[in-house]
Protein backbone atom coordinates (compact mmCIF):
# COMPACT_ATOMS: atom_id res chain seq x y z
CA UNK A 1 0.00 0.00 0.00
CA UNK A 2 1.29 3.46 -0.84
CA UNK A 3 2.49 5.68 1.96
CA UNK A 4 2.91 9.43 2.31
CA UNK A 5 3.26 11.64 5.36
CA UNK A 6 0.04 13.42 4.51
CA UNK A 7 -3.02 11.29 5.31
CA UNK A 8 -5.11 13.01 2.63
CA UNK A 9 -2.56 12.23 -0.09
CA UNK A 10 -2.37 8.71 1.29
CA UNK A 11 -6.15 8.36 1.12
CA UNK A 12 -6.20 9.73 -2.41
CA UNK A 13 -3.37 7.44 -3.47
CA UNK A 14 -5.19 4.49 -1.87
CA UNK A 15 -8.42 5.27 -3.71
CA UNK A 16 -6.77 5.99 -7.07
CA UNK A 17 -4.28 3.14 -6.77
CA UNK A 18 -6.92 0.67 -5.48
CA UNK A 19 -4.53 -2.25 -5.14
CA UNK A 20 -5.90 -5.78 -4.85
CA UNK A 21 -5.36 -6.06 -1.08
CA UNK A 22 -7.18 -2.84 -0.30
CA UNK A 23 -9.96 -3.84 -2.71
CA UNK A 24 -10.35 -7.19 -0.90
CA UNK A 25 -10.44 -5.50 2.49
CA UNK A 26 -13.07 -2.97 1.35
CA UNK A 27 -15.17 -5.71 -0.27
CA UNK A 28 -15.03 -7.86 2.86
CA UNK A 29 -16.00 -4.91 5.09
CA UNK A 30 -19.01 -4.11 2.92
CA UNK A 31 -20.07 -7.74 2.58
CA UNK A 32 -19.98 -8.36 6.31
CA UNK A 33 -21.76 -5.15 7.30
CA UNK A 34 -24.41 -5.38 4.54
CA UNK A 35 -25.22 -9.01 5.33
CA UNK A 36 -25.37 -8.18 9.05
CA UNK A 37 -27.75 -5.27 8.41
CA UNK A 38 -29.90 -7.40 6.10
CA UNK A 39 -30.20 -10.20 8.65
CA UNK A 40 -30.85 -7.69 11.44
CA UNK A 41 -33.60 -6.01 9.36
CA UNK A 42 -35.37 -9.31 8.69
CA UNK A 43 -35.62 -9.84 12.43
CA UNK A 44 -35.78 -6.32 13.81
CA UNK A 45 -38.34 -4.64 11.52
CA UNK A 46 -41.17 -7.09 12.32
CA UNK A 47 -40.06 -7.21 15.95
CA UNK A 48 -40.10 -3.41 16.28
CA UNK A 49 -43.48 -3.12 14.57
CA UNK A 50 -44.96 -5.88 16.72
CA UNK A 51 -43.73 -4.12 19.84
CA UNK A 52 -45.40 -0.95 18.65
CA UNK A 53 -48.78 -2.60 18.08
CA UNK A 54 -49.17 -5.22 20.78
CA UNK A 55 -49.86 -4.51 24.41
CA UNK A 56 -48.70 -7.27 26.70
CA UNK A 57 -47.44 -7.49 30.29
CA UNK A 58 -43.76 -6.64 30.52
CA UNK A 59 -43.86 -4.67 27.27
CA UNK A 60 -42.28 -1.61 28.85
CA UNK A 61 -39.44 -3.72 30.22
CA UNK A 62 -38.76 -5.09 26.73
CA UNK A 63 -38.77 -1.56 25.29
CA UNK A 64 -36.39 -0.26 27.95
CA UNK A 65 -34.07 -3.22 27.42
CA UNK A 66 -34.03 -2.74 23.64
CA UNK A 67 -33.26 0.94 24.10
CA UNK A 68 -30.49 0.13 26.55
CA UNK A 69 -29.00 -2.46 24.17
CA UNK A 70 -28.54 0.30 21.59
CA UNK A 71 -25.62 1.29 23.81
CA UNK A 72 -24.18 -2.22 24.08
CA UNK A 73 -20.38 -1.87 23.98
CA UNK A 74 -19.08 -3.70 20.87
CA UNK A 75 -16.34 -5.36 22.90
CA UNK A 76 -18.95 -6.95 25.17
CA UNK A 77 -20.95 -8.18 22.18
CA UNK A 78 -17.72 -9.55 20.72
CA UNK A 79 -16.80 -11.27 23.95
CA UNK A 80 -20.23 -12.95 24.19
CA UNK A 81 -20.02 -14.20 20.60
CA UNK A 82 -16.44 -15.34 21.23
CA UNK A 83 -17.49 -17.39 24.25
CA UNK A 84 -20.46 -18.84 22.31
CA UNK A 85 -18.47 -19.82 19.22
CA UNK A 86 -15.24 -20.85 20.91
CA UNK A 87 -14.55 -24.60 20.72
CA UNK A 88 -15.01 -24.72 24.48
CA UNK A 89 -18.34 -22.88 24.15
CA UNK A 90 -21.88 -24.17 23.45
CA UNK A 91 -21.72 -23.63 19.67
CA UNK A 92 -18.06 -24.67 19.40
CA UNK A 93 -18.66 -27.60 17.05
CA UNK A 94 -19.72 -25.19 14.31
CA UNK A 95 -16.10 -24.07 14.07
CA UNK A 96 -17.10 -20.51 13.22
CA UNK A 97 -14.70 -18.54 15.41
CA UNK A 98 -12.18 -16.40 13.48
CA UNK A 99 -14.33 -16.52 10.33
CA UNK A 100 -16.35 -13.82 8.54
CA UNK A 101 -19.55 -15.56 9.67
CA UNK A 102 -18.61 -14.92 13.29
CA UNK A 103 -18.15 -11.25 12.45
CA UNK A 104 -21.60 -11.12 10.83
CA UNK A 105 -23.16 -12.67 13.95
CA UNK A 106 -21.47 -10.12 16.22
CA UNK A 107 -22.60 -7.22 14.05
CA UNK A 108 -26.18 -8.53 13.91
CA UNK A 109 -26.23 -8.45 17.70
CA UNK A 110 -25.01 -4.85 17.68
CA UNK A 111 -27.33 -3.63 14.94
CA UNK A 112 -30.53 -5.49 15.83
CA UNK A 113 -31.44 -3.45 18.95
CA UNK A 114 -30.91 -0.16 17.09
CA UNK A 115 -33.17 -1.10 14.21
CA UNK A 116 -35.81 -2.73 16.42
CA UNK A 117 -35.96 0.12 18.95
CA UNK A 118 -36.11 2.90 16.35
CA UNK A 119 -38.61 0.96 14.22
CA UNK A 120 -40.83 0.57 17.29
CA UNK A 121 -40.75 4.30 17.84
CA UNK A 122 -41.46 5.17 14.18
CA UNK A 123 -44.27 2.66 13.78
CA UNK A 124 -45.85 3.63 17.08
CA UNK A 125 -46.20 7.29 16.16
CA UNK A 126 -47.59 6.32 12.76
CA UNK A 127 -49.98 3.91 14.40
CA UNK A 128 -51.27 6.54 16.81
CA UNK A 129 -52.04 8.71 13.82
CA UNK A 130 -53.84 6.11 11.71
CA UNK A 131 -55.22 3.72 14.31
CA UNK A 132 -58.89 4.47 13.65
CA UNK A 133 -58.50 4.32 9.91
CA UNK A 134 -56.76 0.97 10.09
CA UNK A 135 -59.39 -0.36 12.48
CA UNK A 136 -62.21 0.78 10.21
CA UNK A 137 -60.60 -1.30 7.46
CA UNK A 138 -60.89 -4.23 9.84
CA UNK A 139 -57.16 -5.04 9.87
CA UNK A 140 -55.84 -7.28 12.61
CA UNK A 141 -52.55 -6.20 14.23
CA UNK A 142 -50.78 -8.95 12.30
CA UNK A 143 -52.00 -7.49 8.99
CA UNK A 144 -51.20 -3.97 10.17
CA UNK A 145 -47.48 -4.75 10.52
CA UNK A 146 -46.59 -4.85 6.82
CA UNK A 147 -48.92 -1.91 6.08
CA UNK A 148 -47.38 0.29 8.75
CA UNK A 149 -43.82 -0.75 7.89
CA UNK A 150 -44.50 0.16 4.26
CA UNK A 151 -45.98 3.52 5.24
CA UNK A 152 -42.99 4.24 7.47
CA UNK A 153 -40.46 3.16 4.81
CA UNK A 154 -38.78 6.53 4.33
CA UNK A 155 -38.22 6.99 8.03
CA UNK A 156 -37.10 3.38 8.31
CA UNK A 157 -34.44 3.94 5.66
CA UNK A 158 -32.72 6.33 8.04
CA UNK A 159 -33.07 3.74 10.79
CA UNK A 160 -31.43 1.10 8.60
CA UNK A 161 -28.63 3.50 7.69
CA UNK A 162 -28.03 4.16 11.38
CA UNK A 163 -27.69 0.40 11.79
CA UNK A 164 -25.30 0.19 8.86
CA UNK A 165 -23.24 3.02 10.32
CA UNK A 166 -22.89 1.16 13.60
CA UNK A 167 -21.90 -2.04 11.80
CA UNK A 168 -19.31 -0.55 9.47
CA UNK A 169 -17.70 1.70 12.09
CA UNK A 170 -17.41 -0.93 14.78
CA UNK A 171 -14.03 -2.49 15.59
CA UNK A 172 -14.10 -4.02 19.08
CA UNK A 173 -16.35 -6.95 18.26
CA UNK A 174 -14.95 -7.94 14.86
CA UNK A 175 -11.42 -7.78 16.26
CA UNK A 176 -12.24 -10.35 18.96
CA UNK A 177 -14.36 -12.77 16.93
CA UNK A 178 -12.56 -12.32 13.59
CA UNK A 179 -8.98 -12.19 14.84
CA UNK A 180 -7.91 -9.67 12.16
CA UNK A 181 -6.47 -12.48 10.00
CA UNK A 182 -4.74 -11.10 6.91
CA UNK A 183 -6.77 -11.90 3.79
CA UNK A 184 -9.51 -13.69 5.74
CA UNK A 185 -11.07 -11.52 8.44
CA UNK A 186 -9.18 -8.24 8.09
CA UNK A 187 -11.62 -5.38 7.45
CA UNK A 188 -11.27 -1.60 7.21
CA UNK A 189 -11.55 -0.88 10.92
CA UNK A 190 -9.21 -3.64 12.07
CA UNK A 191 -6.68 -2.55 9.41
CA UNK A 192 -6.80 0.94 10.88
CA UNK A 193 -6.08 -0.44 14.36
CA UNK A 194 -3.20 -2.53 12.98
CA UNK A 195 -1.60 0.35 11.08
CA UNK A 196 -1.93 2.59 14.14
CA UNK A 197 -0.15 -0.02 16.23
CA UNK A 198 2.67 -0.10 13.66
CA UNK A 199 3.03 3.66 14.11
CA UNK A 200 2.01 4.14 10.48
CA UNK A 201 -0.37 6.96 11.33
CA UNK A 202 -0.77 8.51 7.85
CA UNK A 203 -1.77 5.15 6.35
CA UNK A 204 -4.15 4.52 9.28
CA UNK A 205 -5.81 7.89 8.82
CA UNK A 206 -5.81 7.42 5.05
CA UNK A 207 -7.73 4.16 5.48
CA UNK A 208 -10.08 6.03 7.81
CA UNK A 209 -10.77 8.60 5.12
CA UNK A 210 -11.44 5.82 2.59
CA UNK A 211 -13.91 4.20 5.01
CA UNK A 212 -15.65 7.49 5.68
CA UNK A 213 -15.89 8.20 1.94
CA UNK A 214 -17.48 4.81 1.35
CA UNK A 215 -20.04 5.28 4.09
CA UNK A 216 -20.81 8.76 2.76
CA UNK A 217 -21.29 7.30 -0.72
CA UNK A 218 -23.71 4.68 0.54
CA UNK A 219 -25.67 7.29 2.49
CA UNK A 220 -25.82 9.58 -0.54
CA UNK A 221 -27.08 6.69 -2.64
CA UNK A 222 -29.80 5.89 -0.12
CA UNK A 223 -30.76 9.55 0.05
CA UNK A 224 -31.09 9.87 -3.71
CA UNK A 225 -33.14 6.67 -3.96
CA UNK A 226 -35.52 7.76 -1.22
CA UNK A 227 -35.92 11.32 -2.58
CA UNK A 228 -36.65 9.97 -6.07
CA UNK A 229 -39.15 7.49 -4.70
CA UNK A 230 -40.86 10.19 -2.62
CA UNK A 231 -41.29 12.40 -5.65
CA UNK A 232 -42.56 9.58 -7.85
CA UNK A 233 -45.03 8.35 -5.27
CA UNK A 234 -46.06 11.82 -4.24
Amino acid at each position, binding site marked *: MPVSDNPFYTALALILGMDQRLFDIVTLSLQISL*IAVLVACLLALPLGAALALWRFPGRNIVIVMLNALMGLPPVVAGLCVYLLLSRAGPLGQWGLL*FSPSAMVIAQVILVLPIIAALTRQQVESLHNEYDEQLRSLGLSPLRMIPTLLWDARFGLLTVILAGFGRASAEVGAVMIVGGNIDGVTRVMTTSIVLETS*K*GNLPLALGLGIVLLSLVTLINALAHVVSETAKRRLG
Partner: protein
Amino acid sequence: MQKTTALVAAGLVGLSWSASLLAEDDFITLASTTSTESSGLFGAIIPAFTDTTGIEVHVVAVGTGQAFEIARRGDADSLLVHDTAGEEQFVANGYATERQNVMYNDFVLVGPSDDPAGISDSESAAEAFALIAESESPFASRGDDSGTNRAELRLWEDAGVTPQGEWYRELGSGMGQTLNTAAGMNAYTFTDRATWVAFENPQDLTILFEGDEALFNQYGSLLLSTENNPHLKHDLATQWHEWLLSSEGQQAIADFEVNGQQLFFPNAE
Protein backbone atom coordinates in the same frame (compact mmCIF):
# COMPACT_ATOMS: atom_id res chain seq x y z
CA MET B 1 -39.72 -4.59 -4.51
CA GLN B 2 -36.79 -4.55 -6.90
CA LYS B 3 -34.63 -3.25 -4.10
CA THR B 4 -35.70 -6.13 -1.88
CA THR B 5 -34.86 -8.61 -4.61
CA ALA B 6 -31.47 -7.00 -5.10
CA LEU B 7 -30.82 -7.08 -1.37
CA VAL B 8 -31.82 -10.72 -1.07
CA ALA B 9 -29.64 -11.57 -4.06
CA ALA B 10 -26.74 -9.71 -2.49
CA GLY B 11 -27.37 -11.59 0.74
CA LEU B 12 -27.36 -14.95 -1.03
CA VAL B 13 -24.16 -14.13 -2.87
CA GLY B 14 -22.61 -13.11 0.42
CA LEU B 15 -23.79 -16.24 2.19
CA SER B 16 -22.53 -18.56 -0.51
CA TRP B 17 -19.25 -16.71 -0.36
CA SER B 18 -18.99 -17.28 3.40
CA ALA B 19 -19.94 -20.91 2.82
CA SER B 20 -17.12 -21.26 0.30
CA LEU B 21 -14.77 -19.85 2.90
CA LEU B 22 -15.94 -22.39 5.45
CA ALA B 23 -15.53 -25.27 3.05
CA GLU B 24 -11.84 -24.49 2.65
CA ASP B 25 -10.07 -27.00 4.84
CA ASP B 26 -6.40 -26.64 4.01
CA PHE B 27 -5.57 -24.03 6.59
CA ILE B 28 -4.50 -23.88 10.18
CA THR B 29 -5.18 -21.17 12.72
CA LEU B 30 -2.02 -19.99 14.45
CA ALA B 31 -2.24 -18.02 17.68
CA SER B 32 0.83 -15.84 17.96
CA THR B 33 2.19 -12.59 19.29
CA THR B 34 1.80 -9.07 17.98
CA SER B 35 5.59 -8.70 17.50
CA THR B 36 5.79 -11.49 14.92
CA GLU B 37 2.78 -10.17 12.99
CA SER B 38 3.30 -6.41 13.05
CA SER B 39 7.02 -6.62 12.22
CA GLY B 40 5.98 -8.37 9.00
CA LEU B 41 7.71 -11.71 9.73
CA PHE B 42 4.68 -13.87 8.97
CA GLY B 43 3.95 -11.98 5.78
CA ALA B 44 7.47 -12.90 4.68
CA ILE B 45 7.75 -16.57 5.72
CA ILE B 46 4.21 -18.00 5.44
CA PRO B 47 4.04 -17.79 1.62
CA ALA B 48 7.14 -20.02 1.45
CA PHE B 49 5.45 -22.58 3.72
CA THR B 50 2.22 -22.42 1.71
CA ASP B 51 4.15 -22.93 -1.53
CA THR B 52 5.81 -26.05 -0.18
CA THR B 53 2.82 -27.67 1.50
CA GLY B 54 -0.33 -26.07 0.09
CA ILE B 55 -1.40 -25.22 3.64
CA GLU B 56 -2.52 -21.68 4.47
CA VAL B 57 -1.82 -20.22 7.89
CA HIS B 58 -4.38 -17.90 9.49
CA VAL B 59 -2.53 -15.81 12.05
CA VAL B 60 -4.41 -14.42 15.04
CA ALA B 61 -1.93 -11.98 16.59
CA VAL B 62 -2.57 -11.25 20.27
CA GLY B 63 -0.58 -10.96 23.50
CA THR B 64 1.07 -14.16 24.71
CA GLY B 65 -1.36 -14.52 27.64
CA GLN B 66 -4.35 -14.35 25.31
CA ALA B 67 -2.66 -16.68 22.81
CA PHE B 68 -2.34 -19.33 25.54
CA GLU B 69 -6.03 -18.86 26.36
CA ILE B 70 -7.08 -19.21 22.70
CA ALA B 71 -5.04 -22.42 22.40
CA ARG B 72 -6.34 -23.79 25.72
CA ARG B 73 -9.94 -23.34 24.52
CA GLY B 74 -9.14 -25.23 21.31
CA ASP B 75 -9.56 -22.23 19.03
CA ALA B 76 -6.11 -22.44 17.44
CA ASP B 77 -4.31 -25.37 15.84
CA SER B 78 -0.84 -24.09 16.59
CA LEU B 79 0.94 -21.73 18.94
CA LEU B 80 4.07 -19.59 18.50
CA VAL B 81 4.82 -17.33 21.48
CA HIS B 82 7.68 -15.96 23.57
CA ASP B 83 7.42 -16.88 27.22
CA THR B 84 9.53 -20.00 27.77
CA ALA B 85 8.47 -20.47 31.40
CA GLY B 86 4.79 -20.13 30.45
CA GLU B 87 5.26 -22.46 27.48
CA GLU B 88 6.84 -25.17 29.62
CA GLN B 89 4.00 -24.84 32.11
CA PHE B 90 1.55 -25.18 29.20
CA VAL B 91 3.21 -28.47 28.21
CA ALA B 92 3.26 -29.64 31.84
CA ASN B 93 -0.47 -28.93 32.08
CA GLY B 94 -1.07 -31.26 29.15
CA TYR B 95 -2.32 -28.68 26.64
CA ALA B 96 0.70 -29.21 24.38
CA THR B 97 2.78 -32.29 23.69
CA GLU B 98 5.97 -30.63 22.56
CA ARG B 99 7.78 -27.28 22.73
CA GLN B 100 10.77 -26.29 20.60
CA ASN B 101 12.98 -23.23 20.30
CA VAL B 102 12.39 -21.55 16.94
CA MET B 103 14.18 -18.23 17.01
CA TYR B 104 15.24 -15.40 19.27
CA ASN B 105 15.83 -11.71 19.29
CA ASP B 106 16.17 -9.32 22.18
CA PHE B 107 14.32 -6.72 24.17
CA VAL B 108 15.54 -3.13 24.35
CA LEU B 109 14.81 -0.22 26.66
CA VAL B 110 13.75 2.88 24.75
CA GLY B 111 13.14 6.34 26.14
CA PRO B 112 13.46 10.08 25.53
CA SER B 113 16.76 10.93 23.82
CA ASP B 114 17.91 13.21 26.68
CA ASP B 115 17.66 10.17 29.02
CA PRO B 116 16.50 11.88 32.27
CA ALA B 117 17.14 8.73 34.35
CA GLY B 118 20.64 8.31 32.87
CA ILE B 119 20.23 4.61 32.04
CA SER B 120 22.45 4.54 28.95
CA ASP B 121 25.63 3.93 31.01
CA SER B 122 24.07 1.16 33.11
CA GLU B 123 26.05 -2.04 33.64
CA SER B 124 22.97 -4.25 33.52
CA ALA B 125 19.30 -4.20 32.64
CA ALA B 126 18.45 -4.48 36.34
CA GLU B 127 20.48 -1.35 37.06
CA ALA B 128 18.75 0.53 34.24
CA PHE B 129 15.33 -0.41 35.66
CA ALA B 130 16.44 0.62 39.15
CA LEU B 131 17.58 4.02 37.85
CA ILE B 132 14.21 4.63 36.18
CA ALA B 133 12.40 3.79 39.43
CA GLU B 134 14.76 5.92 41.50
CA SER B 135 14.32 9.02 39.34
CA GLU B 136 10.58 8.24 39.01
CA SER B 137 10.81 8.93 35.30
CA PRO B 138 7.59 8.10 33.44
CA PHE B 139 7.55 4.48 32.31
CA ALA B 140 4.90 3.01 30.01
CA SER B 141 4.22 -0.67 30.70
CA ARG B 142 2.22 -3.00 28.44
CA GLY B 143 0.27 -4.22 31.48
CA ASP B 144 -1.47 -6.86 29.33
CA ASP B 145 0.10 -10.16 30.46
CA SER B 146 1.92 -10.48 27.14
CA GLY B 147 5.32 -12.15 26.81
CA THR B 148 6.99 -8.74 26.77
CA ASN B 149 5.04 -7.66 29.84
CA ARG B 150 6.02 -10.84 31.68
CA ALA B 151 9.70 -10.27 30.80
CA GLU B 152 9.46 -6.64 31.97
CA LEU B 153 7.96 -7.67 35.32
CA ARG B 154 10.76 -10.20 35.85
CA LEU B 155 13.31 -7.41 35.30
CA TRP B 156 11.66 -5.15 37.89
CA GLU B 157 11.93 -8.07 40.26
CA ASP B 158 15.65 -8.44 39.42
CA ALA B 159 16.07 -4.73 40.12
CA GLY B 160 14.43 -5.19 43.51
CA VAL B 161 11.72 -2.68 42.68
CA THR B 162 7.97 -2.98 42.97
CA PRO B 163 6.89 -0.66 40.17
CA GLN B 164 4.09 1.55 41.38
CA GLY B 165 3.33 5.23 41.63
CA GLU B 166 2.36 7.94 39.26
CA TRP B 167 5.45 7.45 37.08
CA TYR B 168 4.56 3.81 36.31
CA ARG B 169 1.74 3.65 33.80
CA GLU B 170 0.13 0.34 32.95
CA LEU B 171 -1.51 0.78 29.58
CA GLY B 172 -3.12 -2.60 28.97
CA SER B 173 -2.28 -2.30 25.27
CA GLY B 174 -0.35 -4.10 22.57
CA MET B 175 3.29 -3.25 21.84
CA GLY B 176 2.57 -0.82 19.02
CA GLN B 177 -0.07 1.09 20.99
CA THR B 178 2.27 1.22 23.97
CA LEU B 179 5.04 2.68 21.78
CA ASN B 180 2.61 5.27 20.40
CA THR B 181 1.62 6.25 23.93
CA ALA B 182 5.19 6.27 25.24
CA ALA B 183 6.22 8.48 22.30
CA GLY B 184 3.32 10.80 23.08
CA MET B 185 4.21 11.25 26.75
CA ASN B 186 7.97 10.92 26.25
CA ALA B 187 8.21 7.98 28.61
CA TYR B 188 10.57 5.04 28.90
CA THR B 189 9.25 1.71 27.72
CA PHE B 190 10.34 -1.88 27.22
CA THR B 191 9.94 -3.40 23.77
CA ASP B 192 11.04 -6.28 21.62
CA ARG B 193 13.50 -5.17 18.97
CA ALA B 194 11.43 -6.40 16.02
CA THR B 195 8.42 -4.21 16.79
CA TRP B 196 10.73 -1.28 17.54
CA VAL B 197 12.64 -1.47 14.25
CA ALA B 198 9.43 -1.77 12.23
CA PHE B 199 7.72 1.02 14.21
CA GLU B 200 7.29 4.24 12.25
CA ASN B 201 6.25 6.80 14.87
CA PRO B 202 9.14 6.94 17.38
CA GLN B 203 9.15 10.76 17.70
CA ASP B 204 11.82 11.54 20.34
CA LEU B 205 12.23 7.95 21.56
CA THR B 206 15.49 6.12 20.99
CA ILE B 207 17.20 2.94 22.20
CA LEU B 208 18.94 3.73 25.51
CA PHE B 209 19.89 0.32 26.82
CA GLU B 210 20.49 -2.98 25.04
CA GLY B 211 22.74 -6.02 24.95
CA ASP B 212 22.34 -7.54 28.43
CA GLU B 213 21.85 -11.33 28.50
CA ALA B 214 18.76 -10.75 30.63
CA LEU B 215 17.14 -9.13 27.58
CA PHE B 216 17.23 -12.35 25.58
CA ASN B 217 13.85 -13.02 23.94
CA GLN B 218 13.22 -16.64 22.95
CA TYR B 219 10.31 -17.68 20.71
CA GLY B 220 8.96 -21.21 20.88
CA SER B 221 6.59 -23.28 18.76
CA LEU B 222 4.18 -25.63 20.53
CA LEU B 223 2.53 -28.75 19.19
CA LEU B 224 -0.91 -28.74 20.78
CA SER B 225 -2.46 -31.79 22.36
CA THR B 226 -5.57 -33.27 20.74
CA GLU B 227 -6.59 -35.04 23.92
CA ASN B 228 -9.12 -32.41 24.97
CA ASN B 229 -9.57 -30.94 21.51
CA PRO B 230 -9.87 -33.78 19.00
CA HIS B 231 -11.07 -31.36 16.29
CA LEU B 232 -7.61 -29.71 15.99
CA LYS B 233 -5.94 -30.04 12.59
CA HIS B 234 -3.07 -31.92 14.15
CA ASP B 235 -1.48 -33.24 10.94
CA LEU B 236 -1.39 -29.83 9.28
CA ALA B 237 -0.18 -28.17 12.47
CA THR B 238 2.59 -30.75 12.77
CA GLN B 239 3.73 -29.92 9.24
CA TRP B 240 3.92 -26.21 10.20
CA HIS B 241 5.75 -26.97 13.46
CA GLU B 242 8.28 -29.16 11.63
CA TRP B 243 8.71 -26.69 8.78
CA LEU B 244 9.59 -23.92 11.25
CA LEU B 245 12.33 -26.15 12.67
CA SER B 246 13.53 -27.38 9.26
CA SER B 247 16.50 -25.80 7.50
CA GLU B 248 14.12 -24.25 4.97
CA GLY B 249 12.00 -22.61 7.66
CA GLN B 250 15.02 -21.49 9.65
CA GLN B 251 16.56 -19.95 6.53
CA ALA B 252 13.31 -18.08 5.74
CA ILE B 253 13.38 -16.58 9.25
CA ALA B 254 17.04 -15.57 8.87
CA ASP B 255 16.34 -13.97 5.48
CA PHE B 256 13.62 -11.66 6.85
CA GLU B 257 14.87 -8.10 7.15
CA VAL B 258 13.36 -4.68 7.85
CA ASN B 259 15.38 -1.65 6.72
CA GLY B 260 18.30 -3.99 6.03
CA GLN B 261 18.28 -5.30 9.58
CA GLN B 262 17.72 -8.95 10.53
CA LEU B 263 15.05 -9.08 13.26
CA PHE B 264 14.80 -12.76 14.23
CA PHE B 265 17.66 -15.22 14.64
CA PRO B 266 16.78 -18.89 14.08
CA ASN B 267 18.00 -21.26 16.80
CA ALA B 268 16.13 -24.55 16.48
CA GLU B 269 18.19 -27.55 17.57
